[in-house]
């Protein structure tokens, strides 16, 4: 067992993640061809606007389930809402935020864009501290809106008139997943502006604008969209009791900042917080790159229940890094490329 653990700790988890993401992507985009059904409470962007998607993103279900009058929400509709929430939470608890880092197809697409940018050799940007703090609240605002708007369609909130039914599933209307994921099965039907009335025109154009931002943004900023994702906000409400955990032993931290450097979402606390053991923050996607970059033994650690999954070790850090050295020694196509620049 110890030997296996050592082998895992020395391994390159980013490579594993790359493969895992591709498989998850194939499943969530093309699973329908195999008649797979994963239910309606998937805690990640499994978008049923794509006909072949084998499940339903919980945000869609939630938006529909709260689209009811107060009376029915306290009746049997409420039970459906609770059952949906419960199955969402149960699924989420297994993988915690790794749903974002390992499974979410939108996350995967952004990672691919990042890889492409890296290949070309274009730099990426980071938010400064202040923008980071300000912008990160947006996802909570979106989460509240996506729940309140459907409620406002069936109930009068604060005595306001009922909202138009054209706002149904409001987040889906602006979510880039609705347009992008069907494209992978050759369906471009979601790429349109609905000219029925002002509301539909506004929402569908907003959807296209968000899509454009999604693509352009993720070229310049790693995981650009995730920072604003309401699913991520919803996740975080339950993250503290999840089974897959990321912990930090502050005593062994030298504050070298390696973990923050490699963090795709730019969480500073991972490097600076030496007081809290549970270190998953709301923007975290549990890609575990921080563990790879940590050269201290027993400092950062991912575990499932009490079982260690992946730990930071000095040996692992150097074996990953010096592996690159062996690659460099090999004469290959790369050398010729580099000679040129």
């Amino acid at each position, binding site marked *: 067992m110890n030997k296996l653990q050592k082998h895992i700790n020395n391994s390159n988890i980013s490579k594993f993640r790359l493969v895992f993401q591709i498989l998850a992507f194939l499943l969530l985009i093309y699973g329908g061809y195999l008649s797979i059904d994963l239910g309606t409470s998937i805690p990640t962007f499994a978008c049923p606007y794509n006909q072949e998607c084998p499940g339903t993103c919980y945000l869609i279900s939630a938006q529909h389930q709260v689209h009811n009058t107060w009376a029915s929400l306290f009746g049997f509709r409420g039970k459906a809402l609770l059952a949906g929430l419960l199955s969402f939470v149960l699924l989420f608890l297994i993988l915690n935020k790794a749903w974002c880092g390992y499974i979410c197809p939108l996350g995967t697409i952004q990672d691919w864009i990042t890889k492409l940018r890296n290949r070309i050799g274009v730099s*990426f940007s980071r938010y400064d501290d202040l923008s980071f703090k300000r912008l990160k609240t947006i996802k909570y605002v979106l989460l509240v809106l996506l729940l309140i708007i459907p409620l406002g369609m069936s109930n009068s909130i604060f005595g306001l008139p009922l909202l138009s039914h054209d706002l149904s599933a409001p987040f889906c209307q602006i979510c880039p997943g609705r347009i992008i994921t069907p494209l992978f099965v050759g369906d471009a039907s979601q790429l349109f502006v609905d000219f029925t009335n002002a509301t539909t025109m506004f929402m569908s154009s907003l959807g296209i604008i968000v899509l454009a931002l999604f693509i352009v943004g993720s070229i310049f900023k790693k995981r650009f969209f995730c920072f604003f994702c309401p699913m991520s906000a919803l996740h975080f409400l339950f993250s503290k009791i999840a089974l897959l955990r990321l912990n930090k032993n502050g005593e*062994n931290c030298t504050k*070298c900042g*390696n973990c923050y*450097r490699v963090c795709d979402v730019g969480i500073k606390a991972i490097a600076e917080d030496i007081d809290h053991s549970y270190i998953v923050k709301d923007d975290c996607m549990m890609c575990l790159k921080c563990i790879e970059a940590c050269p201290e033994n027993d400092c950062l650690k991912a575990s499932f229940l009490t079982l260690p999954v992946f730990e930071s070790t000095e040996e692992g850090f*150097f074996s990953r*890094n*010096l592996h690159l050295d062996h690659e460099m020694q090999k004469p290959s196509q790369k050398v010729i490329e*580099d000679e040129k620049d």
Partner: protein
Amino acid sequence: MKKIENKRYERLSANSQKRLVIESDNVLHELQNESEDKITGLDYFYDVAGKFARGQLSAQEKKKYIATNCVQVPIELIYAADAIPIRICSGAYSMSQAGDGLLPAKSCSLVSATFGAIYTNSFPVDQEILSIITPTTCDQKKKLSEIPTGIDQPFYTLELPPAKDSEEAREYWYRSVKKFKRKLEKITGNRISRRRLKGAILKVAKAQQAFRNFHQLRKEQTIISGTNAILVANTFFYDDIESWTRHLNDLISELKQRSDRDQTVVENNNPRLLLTGSPSIFPNLKLPIMIEKMGGTIVVDEFCSSNRLLYDTVAVDEWNMYDMIPALADRYLKACTCPCFTPNPDRERKLLAYIKDFQVEGVVYQSFSGCQLYELESLRISRLLEEANIPMLYVETDYSPDDKGQLATRTEAFIESLKTNQHN
């Protein structure tokens, strides 16, 4: 008149160099005869130290050399520019005497020795030094380049922020390092390419890996005296990095074999000490030698010339220039525990971690007279150690051998008191 001055200068230079050789030979002699049971892997390190004193580090090779001061100069960039960094922070008494005449009275020995070496042109290599890089660490170091001496030396001031945790500091340092890269390309005439820099980072990573293995090994067992360990790390900045790494790995395997045979050179019951403060750089090993002679064992040190030198790593996310340079910059800023940074709680945390990991029983804090930063930080550290219930000996000293008697009495008393603690 001019002629007399020139003659005087030449005499000073030649004399200082001669005395440096004697000084270093004396120290090496003392180390080599320290015990009957010799560790053969150490011979290389003694040899390098001896060559350093003779200015013969590079007798055969024709290479470009860049002199560096302090621990914050990104040597990976220098390697990537196909040049060799040589750190010139000096521990030589002869050099400090040469420098003293030109500096204010209360300058610290390390600074006056470094200055003396620069002034008398006593570099450890007998080839031209392209530039002398000085980061803006302590006031004395950074002002060295502005002392009027009449001799032109190619100084370059590498701007280092006075703090390290803020975003502003990092940004400032990134730009400073980028500027340094361009400067290096200019003075060496070599372009720092992506591939070369990657190679340099990985080359240093190999040395770091060896060094960390050495560090871990010392955690488990006291198989080497602290003075020798200090010298081993110290020689890192004197020799070719690859050969140093190879020899350190050899030394590690020899030490491992010895520990398997229970063949230790160090008394196991000696009080376990941590040495910190102003760095003991070869040949100024006065204090560590004294401590170990008096029956203490230095199990770990926190000097910028040894343990702080190689420990911190570079983590690159995307192996392109735009990410490698900030990654490199971070290695020299974020985890560095130099007292020139304010605030500096990381040094306190590091000391506490060492105390725990190496089961340290007492701390010896060295301050060179005139070294304000270490003197000032000693106040916080002594309070911290008092709370942690670890006895600390504060030693103010310099490079002269005059206070050896007084030091012997004080260290002996300290070590004896620790031994009494052990018995209780």
